[in-house]
């Protein structure tokens, strides 16, 4: 455990999520509790279908729990309206997808600039921030490339830059290396760890891969709807 004084940034209480498909009910999360301190890098593991993505999406404010509460930075986001959540997400969450989800018609620079445009940030400020994060991910020489002109690893680095550009409290990543070869994956993971450390970001990463999880400073397993703390073997 790191410093005892770090405040709790993500707090889940009795979190339950059920999906209804006709007559069958799936409950990937059941009375789940979680407290995560600010600045930690958490790896979420668990078998396929165990609810990792579901939990991540609830933390990111794009899904809502069926019952229970989730508080992030002392704000109970499970009580926010859809439009409040959208605005909150834009400022507080940086989401990194497995399949990057860059906008194909926009260049790397424009993709990274997009969240700032949505937040109506001034042009000069945008330029400063975009150049800064592109430099952080090492892509300043690929700014005017379109996603199709980039490798998978480069695309994911653009996506990381896009997630960082709004300076969010929390980065969430759903199998960010799931689609990459081993070398690129390592590259991305050390970048994530380093940026998380340097910029004091809290990171929640879903992964299947024990090696990926080893980059985090904490690993939790999802089993039967609950989180179990255990060190990967």
């Amino acid at each position, binding site marked *: 455990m790191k410093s005892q004084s770090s405040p709790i940034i993500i707090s889940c209480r009795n979190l339950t999520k059920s999906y209804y498909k006709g007559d069958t009910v799936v409950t990937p999360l059941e009375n789940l509790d979680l407290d995560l301190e600010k600045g930690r890098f958490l790896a979420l593991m668990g078998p396929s279908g165990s609810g990792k993505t579901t939990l991540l999406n609830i933390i990111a404010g794009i*899904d809502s729990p069926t019952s229970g509460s989730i508080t992030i930075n002392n704000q109970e986001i499970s009580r926010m309206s859809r439009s409040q959540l959208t605005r909150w997400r834009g400022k507080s969450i940086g989401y990194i*997808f497995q399949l990057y989800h860059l906008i194909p*018609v926009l260049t790397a620079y424009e993709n990274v600039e997009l969240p700032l445009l*949505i937040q109506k940030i001034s042009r000069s400020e945008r330029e400063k921030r975009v150049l800064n994060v592109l430099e952080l991910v090492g892509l300043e020489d690929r700014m005017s490339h379109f996603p199709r002109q980039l490798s998978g690893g480069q695309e994911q680095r653009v996506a990381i830059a896009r997630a960082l550009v709004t300076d969010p409290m929390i980065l969430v990543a759903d199998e960010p290396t799931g689609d990459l070869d081993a070398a690129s994956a390592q590259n991305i993971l050390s970048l994530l760890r380093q940026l998380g450390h340097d910029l004091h970001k809290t990171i929640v990463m879903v992964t299947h891969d024990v090696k990926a999880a080893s980059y985090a400073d904490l690993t939790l397993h999802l089993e039967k709807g609950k989180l179990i703390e255990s060190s990967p073997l």
Partner: protein
Amino acid sequence: MLPLSYSLRNLGRFPWKTLQMVLGSTIVVFLIVSASAFNRGITACLSVTGDLNNVIVLGAGSEESIQRSEIARIAPDILASSIREIRRVLDKPAVSSEVYYMGMAALSDAPKKNWPAIYRGVTWNALNVHRNIVITEGRFPGPSEVMVGRQVARYMGVKDSDLAIGKSILFEGISYSIVGQFQGEGTMMEAEVWMDINDLLTASKRETVSCATISLSRPQDFDAISLFCMQRLDLELSAIREQAYYASLSNFYQPIRLAVWLTALLISIASVFGGINTAYAAIIVRRREMAALQVIGCSRVALIFSILVESLIINLIGAFVSLSIASAWLPSIHISFSTGVFHMIVDNHTLILGFLSAGIMAVAGIIMPAWGCLKPTIVSSLRST
């Protein structure tokens, strides 16, 4: 809000689909504009034909048709001498005795071939009554002579040069030389051949005239003529304002107008559905992208707005293309109908209608795809493949 460049570049994403949508919009706008230009043309032609101060006195029972109407040859003279409210020109009452006859005409150069023609037998007084008729060349016809309106060649389907002054036409085997040409401010009379009333009575073997057209000093004096017709039951006359007469003719063409609109609308609807389909296909593939945009903080309103911008660009290009074609081409199209020739009218009204329908299509076209993309939750859109 998403940047405009995002909308613009999305249009280049599926160029073929974009082109298809532009084309669809062009066709729809063109159809609607053409239908409107047609209807405005026919209405305008009929409405300018009536003079507010003029009254047509027809045979009782034939109020809808000058063609069928018969009144005694003496009736116009009786009207002229009995009603004081009639306008006077050079101290003579402005009453025009007229025979209206739809027959055939042949050119003296090609006597075997016959074309449809509309004849109006008149006296000099006709020009005092039909004040918008202006002789542009030559002179008023005397016996065995005619003058032709500027649309006669079009109505008959012959060349303008066939009806030049100095040529002649054959009507019921008799030759009439063309001595004048006139225009009438777009009225239906521009499609008529005017000749001496006695010539026409003889040629058409009539003993009665069709009507008397009367010019009043004040439109409200119509009642005086109406009253006269009711009192002189023996003459079997019926008075109708010239404008009302052509307005009722206009009603007669109502079914044609409706049919034109209906055809345009039906083809448009089919085309709009095709467009919606294409738009749906082009936008639904962006479903995950739009979910990702929402994840990074973009609101659904902003997304709808950006799709709407794309749709507006497509439809406005379509409108621009078809309105350019329409304003260059449609006004030159003249259409003959039974009693005259009119041309299609493209004016501000038509242009506004064109842009309006493009705007409506822009909105209608994105409702379904926007619903398909933005109704599902972000999570299920992200999970979709």
